[in-house]
């Protein structure tokens, strides 16, 4: 379920409700153990993603991943990693409420992001993601297709990022 928050604008923006999200930190040498627990091959290059069922993993750094799943699966994920800990220590922390997710959809979505994101967005391929900044705010940016992005932003920074997106969206709609 999504909450549409803008109507007539160049890019369709929406704010997703909270959903289970985890920060996984584990020694790169132990990645395969975590992959086994998750039932997906954790990518080892920052930016790469892997998914199975409701689970999606994005590699953010050499020993850092963010995991997404749905409410039905959350307990299973937590239990599986709790069982893994005595054998293979790691850190799995629920950050479901730490960030909020904004979706951007439309042919001008990348252009909208370029108003405040200094990254070369053409270098972020569909099906990848990255940690970057939007204005001065740290975000995780996922690209789901040419014209679909997700911004994960710290909860208290959401109003600033949202206001910037809306302002720039009106600017794109004005066409100049």
């Amino acid at each position: 379920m999504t909450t549409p928050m803008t109507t007539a604008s160049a890019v369709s923006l929406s704010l997703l409700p909270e959903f289970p999200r985890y920060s996984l930190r584990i020694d790169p040498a132990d990645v395969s153990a975590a992959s086994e627990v998750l039932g997906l091959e954790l990518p080892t290059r920052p930016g790469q993603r892997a998914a199975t069922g409701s689970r999606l993993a994005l590699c953010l750094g050499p020993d850092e991943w963010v995991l997404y799943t749905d409410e039905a699966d959350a307990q299973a994920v937590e239990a599986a990693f709790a069982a893994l800990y005595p054998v293979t220590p790691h850190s799995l922390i629920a950050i479901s409420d730490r960030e909020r997710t904004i979706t951007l959809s439309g042919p001008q979505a990348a252009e909208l992001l370029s108003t405040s994101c200094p990254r070369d967005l053409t270098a972020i391929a569909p099906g990848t993601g990255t940690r970057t900044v939007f204005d001065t705010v740290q975000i995780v940016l996922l690209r789901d297709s040419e014209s679909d992005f997700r911004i994960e932003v710290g909860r208290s920074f959401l109003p600033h990022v949202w206001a910037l997106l809306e302002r720039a969206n009106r600017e794109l709609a004005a066409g100049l």
Partner: protein
Amino acid sequence: MSAFRIPGKGRVCHDKPVRFTFDGKQYQGLEADTLASALLANGVHLVGRSFKYHRPRGIVSAGSEEPNALVGVSRGGGREEPNTRATLQEVYEGLTAISQNRWPCLHFDAGATADVLHRFLPAGFYYKTFMWPKRFWDRLYEPLIRRAAGLGVPPSEPDADHYASRYAHCDVLVVGAGPAGTAAALTAGRSGAQVILADEQAEIGGALLADDKVQIEDQTAADWLSAAQAELAALPNVRLLARTTAIGYYHQNMVGLAQRITDHLASPPADAPRERMWRVRAAQVVLAQGAIERPLVFHGNDRPGVMLAGAAQIYLNRYGVKPGKTVVVVTSHDSAWHTAFDLADAGTPIAAIIDTRPAIDPALTEAAAPRGIEALLSHTVTATSGRLRLRSIHVNAVTDGKVGGARLILCDTLLMSGGWTPSLHLFSHTQGKLAWDEASQSFLPDLKTEACHIAGGGRGLWGIENALQDGAKVGAEAAMAAGFNATAPALTTQNDRSGAGIIIAELPTDRGPQSTRSFVDLQNDVTSKDIRLAVHEGMHSIEHVKRYTTSGMATDQGKLANMNGLAIAAAAIGKPPPQVGLTTFRPPYTPTTFGTFAGYHQDDTFDITRKTPIDPWAADNGAVFEPVSLWRRAWYFPKPGEDMHAAVARECRATRNAVGIFDASTLGKIEVVGPDAVEFLNRLYTNPWTKLAPGRCRYGLLLGEDGYILDDGVIGRLSEDRFHVTTTTGGAARVLNMMEDYLQTEWPDLRVWLTSVTEQWATIALNGPNARKLLEPLVEGQDLSDEAFPHMSLADCTVAGFPARLFRVSFTGEMGFEVNVPARHGLALWQRLLGEGEAHDICPYGTETMHVLRAEKGFIVVGQDTDGTVTPGDANLGWAIGKRKPDFVGKRSLARPDLVDPNRKQLVGLLTDDPKVVLEEGAQLVDDPNRPIPMQMIGHVTSSYWSEALGRSIALALVEGGRMRMGETLYLPMASITHTAKVSRTVFYDPDGQRLSM
């Protein structure tokens, strides 16, 4: 149609008239006119008064280098701008422009008395005249100078426009869209490279927009340009940015582009930004900035009607405007001859072409003769006349270096050309090295520091064909350097009127050197005499000459003045120009609005304001907020009729007597997990952690390597391998960075991982004797009795049905709990606790009450009672140091002699002799107020409040040897009174801590 507009000529829309006003008078221009071209079409040359002498000034150039035609433009309603260059401002229906620096009006300006007094206003006169008496400076000289200085009037209303920014990445950025830049962009664009082509003019084309003779690839320049424009527009990998000035060239090929978006529109769309800053990161940059024509320096060269010849060619061919009725050309370069020919062919009488050179290409004189133009070689201009517009000039022959008698020529327009100066501004921003070119008497780009390429006029080439071919070649080189396969097209031309010229510092004259007023810098009113005076008075570096005379220091940064100023200074010093040097060009290339730099940072997007999940309740309930780092926090909650003092006193009473509820969500939180978590904390924090049992917590103190307090907070042990670390609100990011830094660089062997959970949890603190009574019925999964859950405990449980991480801690000295719930539930839990708390006399309190309550207990606030030079010992926190730990960050520094000095400033309490006096935080302490000023200060107040619990004021202070001064009276001299206070312990309230379990 005015007498000066040639029907059908140029690129303006002759069928689209546009009305505008200048100084209240209505004029008609055409769409695609600039304000300058439209005024010239109406015969208006006089557009402003000069900066220092208030001399009448006219339009000199046709581009961004314009020094004179600076006007105020306004749309009303907070949309106005001073110092807009009339040569760039496009006219639109209803444009309102005014002249500047004149009173009461442009034609009669009282400030022109400065011109009469010019002998008394030499270079550096500010430094010479306003020296004494010294006391006059603040009250008389500075206000006077400030009033006289500056151009234009700043807007009085807030800017109603908004501004935008954009990041872009490309393979090749081409700066300047003249023949070289256009050819470069075409070549690179055809190779498939991502190309951005930026030009400050409204239309791309540069010199091609003003040359109707040259043929390119057997087409007219206009046709070739149309095709090029169409091809560039059609290439999906090319982005064309007109009205866009490259203002700065920064590290690693980042170029700032300032785009003007709505300033040319009669009615801009509401959501369109006025300007946009592009931050372009380019793999390769092509600088095709071209060259700027040099004015000639001669007596009276600043009268309205004296204009650059190249500008006249642009006004004629691009805008269809004749610059005057009778024109004389004075030049040292061939290019001005062609301007004369174009004007003559368009029906403007050319009274003479005066060339300083004794011999020139005979083709030029041969072309002048059939047009009836008198050619005067080896001649000079020695004077001009005409107050508000040029009326006549004095022309003299120069024979063997001697200036002959003057001949008067009547004319209303004098076109001048002193040759062309390659534009090096952006190249200079990169700190690239310049080389002096003896032949052209100019600096050219030499050693590069960035991946940039210079094409065309910017590297000293002259002529359309040269520029086109060089641009194509350089465009191909840039594309190939970016990894594309590019071939430069062979662009050939016919009727390319290339040529050459010489550089002449100042025209020969028959006047004495003290009686010439030959302007070098028109915008700052600097004459050649001023520059010679500066050299005479000892300024032998061009940087000193510049600062002494202000030559080149106006907003045009000496685009017209610098080379002439250098040549004159070099001649006066007697050294070649390269030894005298060139002043540094700095960004921005042209004046840029603050709005463009600010971008979206205005109004609701001015800056980040972080709000907690409970903030909406606080806002609805009348909270007064205060900023704490990026957060806004509820400061206090006044009830109707309450001031801050009353509200805080009530909140304090309620918390001490019943229960207070406080939003502590902004506290930094870091989860530290791993088999080595405890070892990591042992090494980082001063306290011992090994024996802390799971389910218990402890106050933690963090130092820097210097031994000074950096941060503090409660740290709870969730399990053997898992800790919940809290930090100060402002220190959260800093502490996490420091932890990661040590982990990654000092102790990579430790198996421990850090995760920020500040925003994961909403944190609600309950403090007061009723806290447990309120909380107990709502908690499941944890017994809250003193036995099962003593002070400094933590547990995972549920509170009001929400999963919670519950702490029993106290920052008030009362029994206290901190409930952490996932942030989404924070507001709901707050409202539930408030509802249930009614029966227990609950009271929400803000940060001010929190500060008072903690100060009553002597708890420090890092950053308020510490300032980066306070050790644990200074702050009475020696007990927090694990004495038996082999090491922790800062341990070695704590043994330094100066850190164990007993006379260091130590944190003590202060009780004023008058209990009603609340000291000012920051007030300085002395031990003897009768010493002469400046007296020795021995400390300062760090925290000071009215304590409702004690019914008197309390304060904390850092005082030299403070702990040895217990009971001593100290003095606080203020502006009108000296307070007295006695040194006390820092714990003012409940020193035995009995209330923690009440």
